[in-house]
């Protein structure tokens, strides 16, 4: 059930399928990020893949017949026609074609009829159609999947494909459960169900005694959590610096070393990170401190190389030492950035108030405190997040008046229009939820009434 492993196994199989020899990996934009999410360059080089190309309409025309081409693509119509074009004028010796999802027979026929020189040696479906971020988390890199509470049809298809490929790569044929209150969840569940019945052969998998379950939940059910400041290491890095494809962009820092402009935060390769990614900020600080001390003492030891045995020990430990120095330096820079943001944005105070609002402690003083903090000139986003949180958590009639005055305050502080709009959106969303809740309550009452009626008739 390890997603990274699942994608890795597929790619290892691809490189093994075509035997020894120099290989080129021909991908599209999405599959490139899929592969790079699980394989470092050095790892893939050791599998004899020496060239990485993107299949575009303007590919180079350098022919290298001595290389085998592993073609790994999403089965989009654009890719199909590009493959056909590629095969009509093949640039490489042999082609091993893998699609990351289910492909139609007609598409295969089209490709087959372009392969006049008979260079294709393999056509397979390998279901690595998602970005494996950690063993238990994947993403499809969809920036926004819908508008006005309904699916963008393109993204609905993509999401369905993504989930189908996850299930196939883990060999699971689950029972689908979805959140009934959400129309989007229902649509997605139905789409997946359609594919289950259409591809019966594929999903005819050996199962254990217990059928696994696929739970489809709507994130909107809990609008509060995303507004709160997280305090565990990985979450903080993502919140404050943004992790993208396991990479953190640090190029905005002044006079940073070129090595650290873009750093990789990958639990697979970085044990320090793996052990500490879920620890909270304070703990991490202490761990870092002890690491640095440890590191300093080691560095000191390395400085004096008097005897031959010293030197021997140095040479033996050096690669480890160097690797460690790289990781420690990386995490120190990140930690510096984080603590810098924490002080700059007044996050300790902000977060405390966030927690109080979320947990409804001393609710009478909330508005006063929000006001105080906004007066302290905390950044736009934090200020508006506090107001949004307040909007979500307060239902009384007074609060409406309070909210308008808070928004006025935001405006007077010249908070950008974008954020104020978001506050309004959240308010609308909240009122809709309250309405829905009342409706369901009414429904429930009606049902119980009916139930009683039936009972009465029965007697």
């Amino acid at each position, binding site marked *: 059930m390890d997603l990274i492993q699942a994608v890795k196994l597929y790619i290892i199989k691809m490189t093994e399928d075509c035997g020894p020899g120099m290989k080129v990996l021909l991908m599209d934009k999405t599959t490139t990020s899929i592969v790079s999410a699980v394989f470092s360059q050095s790892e893939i080089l050791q599998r*004899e893949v*020496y*060239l990485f190309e993107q299949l575009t309409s303007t590919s180079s025309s*350098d*022919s290298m017949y001595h290389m085998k081409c592993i073609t790994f693509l999403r089965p989009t119509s654009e890719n199909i026609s590009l493959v056909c074009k590629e095969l009509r004028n093949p640039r490489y010796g042999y082609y091993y074609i893998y699609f990351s999802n289910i492909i139609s*027979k007609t598409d295969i026929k089209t490709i087959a009829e372009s392969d006049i020189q008979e260079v*294709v040696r393999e056509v397979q479906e390998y279901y690595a159609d998602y970005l494996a971020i950690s063993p238990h988390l994947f993403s499809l890199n969809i920036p926004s999947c819908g508008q006005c509470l309904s699916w963008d049809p393109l993204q609905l298809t993509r999401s369905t494909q993504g989930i189908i490929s996850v299930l196939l790569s883990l060999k699971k044929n689950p029972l689908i459960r979805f959140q009934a209150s959400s129309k989007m969840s229902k649509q997605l569940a139905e789409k997946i169900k359609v594919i289950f019945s259409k591809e019966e052969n594929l999903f005819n998998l050996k199962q254990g005694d217990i059928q696994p379950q696929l739970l489809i939940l709507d994130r909107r059910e809990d609008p509060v959590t995303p507004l709160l400041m997280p305090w565990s290491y990985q979450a903080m890095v993502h919140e404050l610096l943004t992790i993208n494809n396991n990479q953190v962009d640090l190029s905005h820092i002044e006079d940073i070393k070129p090595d650290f402009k873009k750093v990789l935060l990958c639990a697979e390769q970085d044990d320090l990170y793996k052990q500490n990614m879920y620890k909270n900020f304070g703990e991490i600080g202490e761990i870092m401190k002890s690491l640095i001390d440890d590191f300093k003492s080691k560095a000191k030891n390395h400085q004096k190389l008097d005897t031959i045995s010293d030197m021997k020990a140095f040479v033996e430990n050096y690669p480890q030492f160097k690797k460690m120095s790289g990781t420690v330096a990386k995490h120190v820079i990140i930690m510096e950035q984080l603590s810098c943001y924490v002080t700059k944005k007044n996050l300790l105070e902000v977060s405390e108030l966030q927690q109080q609002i979320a947990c409804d402690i001393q609710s009478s003083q909330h508005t006063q405190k929000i006001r105080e903090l906004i007066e302290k000139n905390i950044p736009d986003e934090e200020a508006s997040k506090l107001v949004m949180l307040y909007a979500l958590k307060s239902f009384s009639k007074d609060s409406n008046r309070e909210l308008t005055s808070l928004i006025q305050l935001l405006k007077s502080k010249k908070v950008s229009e974008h954020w104020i709009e978001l506050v309004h959106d959240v308010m609308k969303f909240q009122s809709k939820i309250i309405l829905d809740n009342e409706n369901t309550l009414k429904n429930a009452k009606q049902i119980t009434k009916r139930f009683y009626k039936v009972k009465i008739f029965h007697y």
Partner: protein
Amino acid sequence: MNEPGEENIVLEGFLCPICKVDFGLDLKLFLHFQEAHSEDQDLVKSFKDLFGKAKEKILKNDIGKKEERHYVWEPQEIGEVQSHFEYFKHCRNKWVEHFVMETNKTVVRLEKLLCNLPQDPNKRKIHEQTIVHWLDGTDVTRCPDCTKSFNITRRQHHCRLCGSIVCHECSCFLPLSKAYETINEPGKNPMNSIAQSLPSFRLCVHCGEVLENREQTKYRDQKPLMCDYYDKIVECRNKIENDLLIKFNQTYNLLKEGESSYLTEANKIRSDIVKLAETIDALSNRILKLENDTNSSNVTTKNIRLAMIQCVQSTVLAIPALPSLKEIEEIAQRKREVAEARLRNGQDTNKPKMSPSVSKRHNTQKNEIKLILEDGWSPVTNANVNSENPVVEQMNIIKNYIKQAKEAYRFDEVASLERNLQELNEEYFKMQNGSRNMSDYSTKN
């Protein structure tokens, strides 16, 4: 270890712990116990304690296992795959047959055209028309390829190979020299210079593509110099990975066991590996220096060089330094001492100290242990595994002691022995994990 005898008969069922009679039902046993042994309250108490302890232990074990699972994922097999190659081939074969036939026809026509080709343009036109029937152009008002209508500026042209009519944009030219090349008779062209000046053949794009494809396939088997070097590199790598490194590890382990006679051999293997690594380094450097005309081959050579540097680094760094003769003798000495100590003490009930020789020996048994692991190694049930591993041996002994102590009703001792066993279990598990990690490591490199 398990001598057959009355002491070791295993009884099952609802046994009374004192008179060892099977009662078949728990209720019956309970009643019997209350009737017959109600005075042995102490015993009952100690029993309860024992159960409590066992419960505690089981719970602890469970938690331990859960944590283990949290870190180590179960071995995962590759996900579903679906091959379309059979259908692909089926579709391709039909199409390729058709295409090959067309190619052959085209080439045959080209051969005929080139045979006794007159130089005079008019005569040439007649010659061309006798070989390939030219389509009558009077009814053709549009180019069949681009569907643009013909007029004074867009004139009709005939493809010399199939006789069809196309416009200028949908046609291409085949130079005579290339035409001779195509039919594999470059030398048969008597007047090379004149042939150059003669107009080329006008072809429709389809015939042009057919010939072009045929040309391309000719070059497919050519291999650049890079391939030779690369093949040599692969050869060296295989030799290191599949032969020398294995041998080296074997001798290295023997050295660590204190067998000093293998020192020269180990040194030799070590230097062989280093030499091969140097060869790989040199060859990849030569690949890098090759003259490349294209951008992609530049990238490729760079990447090959990078990969080989990594490979060389990892192999050379993975070879540990050999111990000196003195160190080996020390190890041998220590080993002898341990063996003697063991002889003196007999089979000690205490947890044995892990001497370095034990852990090293463990490495040589890697395969064996792996096998046990795959069979679903569980520390408790596999008591009768006749392993050479001293820890397992010790565990078995303790298990026997526990049994005997239970039979003698010395429950305090049972508890302390069980603690010992638990510690040993943990130790053994650690060693197992260690060896597994090591084997993972060696396969990775």
